[in-house]
């Protein structure tokens, strides 16, 4: 009976630890753009300048994760007329902000800028991964149990050789 209780507690403990894998999932809403973890999100458009500047321009892309302001990606491209196209995957199911800036390559001044809030849909890990993790962690506990039982048996055998256990005999 005691063994079953301990086994039940072990399984419960494993279930709780496996849930740490979900830690990055969140369902924050309200973004301008929707993306899914595991898939590329495409950004395409054209930035217009208000002045008389003419191309080619430099287009800068900057993506940050809003929950901790972590810089996820930053890169630049060149464009003859202000049009842009790039794709990236958001690997964390949290809200991100992508800033696209049109920059004068000579003066490095920002001619136009667009900010896009991206709502990223997170997913739970695949069932196979959860099962594998559970099996691995249970195997580790089972290994410890085998060692514990072996130590007890070894001690018992030793004591028998030394003539202890008068009540058992």
């Amino acid at each position, binding site marked *: 009976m*005691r*063994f079953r209780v*301990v086994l039940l507690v*072990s399984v419960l403990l494993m279930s709780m630890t496996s849930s740490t*894998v979900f830690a*990055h999932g969140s369902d924050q809403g309200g973004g301008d753009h929707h993306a899914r*973890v*595991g*898939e*590329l999100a495409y950004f395409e458009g054209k930035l217009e300048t208000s002045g008389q500047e003419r191309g080619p321009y*430099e287009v800068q*892309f900057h993506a940050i994760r809003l929950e901790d302001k*972590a*810089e*996820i*990606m*930053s*890169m*630049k*491209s*060149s464009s003859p007329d202000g049009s842009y*196209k*790039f*794709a*990236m*995957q958001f*690997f*964390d199911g949290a809200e991100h902000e992508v800033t696209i800036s049109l920059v004068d390559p000579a003066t490095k001044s920002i001619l136009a800028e667009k900010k896009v809030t991206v709502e990223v849909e997170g*997913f739970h*890990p*695949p069932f196979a*991964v959860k099962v*594998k*993790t559970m099996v691995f*962690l249970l195997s*580790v*506990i*089972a*290994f*410890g*149990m*085998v*060692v*514990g*039982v*072996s*130590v*007890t*048996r070894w001690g*018992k055998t030793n004591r028998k050789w030394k003539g202890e*256990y008068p*009540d*058992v005999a």
Partner: protein
Amino acid sequence: MTKVTFLGIIAIIFALMFSNSPVTAGESIIANVQNEQGGDVRPDLDTAEVELMFANIQNGTAHIFLRSPERKFFSPTDFPIVEGTDLIDATLPIENGKATFQYMFPIRGDYHLKVDVVDGEGKAAGTHELVITINENPEEVKNAVIFIAILVAFGFVVGYVLSRGRKRVHAV
């Protein structure tokens, strides 16, 4: 094993060796990955500066496709959904033989970077494949070892206590 079978196995091994050497194929491009804060790049923590150096091209464009490490049966990462998927599809300018971007790599493993190069005159200058290796965060490795040690200790105590308990029952 017959001679034909043996030669066939050798031929397959050689074919696999040459097909899995993208760094050799991309000798004219060198990828340099550095942590902006110094030290090794840690996944989902550090923003790395990736610098692509082109030996034969001074100006032009590089269309890059970055793919995450493939899924491995025995070592799932923090983001299993991300494993073996496309991460970046973008075009970078090559200036003075270099193209750079900053990126936070999500997981540990070997990333495959495919680079389509176009020179300054708009002519295709070849496709290259590079492998970028990101190691696991040492802190996470340490925490995993501690966690597994705690589980082994927990199992040990449970096994020890249960087997001692059984002994007493038999004794009575």
